[in-house]
């Protein structure tokens, strides 16, 4: 059971990573760009689809097939997460354009599901020392948290925790692996 979980997480992580790394330039702009400038400050409640949220308590309601997110457990959501990781450069907690795009998308999800709470995990690649990386991971998580807060996500929905280089997503020892492991990783903790 645990092993199956591992596989699905690794795969979903890889998909998320490949989306973020490869497909973002082609796919993302239409989805992500409209959000920050107008929506950030002006609209605290999500205009697109308020109906599913209200209907979700009704088990038999027809809204379920329309929004599978609402019916899934937290574990299910995390196994195939709608939240994207934000990736960082070596020994850096600065948000790149790609990282901000991922966080913009995450902000949209959090606005669509205003009851969700997340923990932002800060992770590092193995090239730094274990001790310093705890602080570096924390700084990455806090950078992601601060950016989401600037987009209007309430701070009490965003916990941070640093794991330094203790839990690499890719066990490899090359730049491809390092790039995946330098991240702010989102775990949904409540819905």
């Amino acid at each position, binding site marked *: 059971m*645990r*092993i199956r*979980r*591992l596989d699905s*997480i*690794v795969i979903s*992580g890889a998909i998320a990573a490949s989306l973020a790394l490869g497909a973002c330039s082609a796919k993302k702009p239409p989805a992500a760009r409209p959000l920050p400038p107008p929506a950030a400050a002006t609209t605290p409640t999500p205009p697109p689809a308020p109906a599913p949220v209200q209907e979700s308590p009704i088990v038999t309601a027809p809204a379920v097939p329309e929004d599978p997110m609402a019916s899934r457990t937290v*574990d299910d959501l*995390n*196994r195939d997460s709608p939240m994207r990781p934000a990736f960082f450069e070596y*020994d850096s907690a600065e948000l790149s354009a790609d990282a901000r795009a991922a966080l913009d998308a995450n902000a949209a999800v959090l606005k669509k599901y205003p009851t969700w709470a997340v923990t932002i995990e800060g992770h590092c690649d193995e*090239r*730094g*020392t*274990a*001790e*310093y990386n*705890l*602080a*570096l991971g*924390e*700084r990455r998580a*806090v950078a992601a948290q601060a950016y989401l807060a600037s987009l209007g996500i309430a701070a009490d929905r965003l*916990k*941070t*925790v*640093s*794991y330094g280089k*203790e*839990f690499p997503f890719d066990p490899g020892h090359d730049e491809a692996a390092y790039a995946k492991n330098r991240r702010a990783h989102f*775990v949904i903790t409540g819905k």
Partner: protein
Amino acid sequence: MRHSRVTLAAGLAAAGLAAAAWPGRAPEAAPQQPTEVILSISGEAGARPRYAVPDFIARTADAETQAAAALMGTVLWDDLAFEREFYMIPRDTYRTIPAARSFADIPFDRWRELGADGLVVGTVERAGAGGFRVEVRLFDVRARRSVVAKEYSGSAANPRLYAHTAADDIHQQQRALRGVARTKLTFSSDRDGERVANAVSARDVKEIYIADYDGANQRRVTVTRKLNIMPRWSPDARSIAYTSYRRDFPDVYVSQIYQGALENPTGGRGQNWLPAWSPDGTRLCFTSTRDGNSELYVMNRDGTGLLRLTTHPAIDTTPTWSPGGTQIAFVSDRSGSPQIYIVDADGLNLRRLTSESWCDRPTWSPAPFNEIAYASKTGPGYDIVIYDLATQERRQLTSGRGSNESPAYAPNGRHLAFMSTRTGRTQIFVMGRDGQDVRQITTAGNNYTPDWSR
């Protein structure tokens, strides 16, 4: 021997720690024949004295006593070899010399032929239920007289402890050296192959372990199925402070390993990690984000008396105390990369020590040495470097083989423990302060961030 195994095991079990048979503290030495003058055995001119340590003599015929007698000889030889004060004559050359049956029939001529200046002879016999009585004498082979004579009695559970105690006594009497044979290492390990409980993805736990200084008696201390990392011995070697994610965020915990009690001095106020004991054991310096950024704080062991030490928007972390407790060395990236700084324990008088690529885990040496060991990025990985505070000279102890990180001094400053990837996985090693005589301590799983008890 002061030894209350029953109460110790009960205390450990009560706190949910590994309930194994724990060795008590070292047996109290009871000199049998008080030596009027301490005689020092010397070697040939300019050479270290040559010592031989044959198997101890089993005075009772049972298998356990006989096995213990052989083990004690081996362990004592290793302990004496470790400090490199004596040339230890290899044990496989003793075969032709008839074994003594008592202190009265030692063939001194034969040992002299082998070139021995000093000869350690020990006897082991049963004493009560589950106990041993052990006598150890160091002979000056030329003079055919005993210069050290010790008697120990206690539990038969850990024969190695008798040899370790004798080694410390011999080093003390012959060289005025505080040996480390009874000290211990602590480190974190993923050897159990357990996964973090309730985690979304598969993540390996790390638990705190302890071991004798030579790697024997490796035992698990924490049983949390979470991350437990970067342990540090309290100066009295009865507690270990470490960073634990047992509540899914990093916080400072102190395990009193012989009592089985657990303390949480930081109490979850902010996220807290990397505790370092003050030399008197009354305070902890640690990293915390309680004010929004990684800063250094000092608090009393019970969590009172919080003092903020740093106020820089950069990262400040990985503290170590000077032996006198008046200064703290730590790591900051305020220059743009992680470098080592020193600050007075009241937060004043900050100065920078290193200007390298990436430095971490400074560890201040015990006196009489006045130096700081740390890990320095020398290529793809790190090497152990020692910075001499008096001469401001820097020397590199490891080179080229894997990444070598997280140095920790032996309490007499003559050796360092560190972690290295030189054999593939990450393991704990020990080496002399000249970088020589590297010994591998762990082999199971991966093992990280050692610390050495006082």
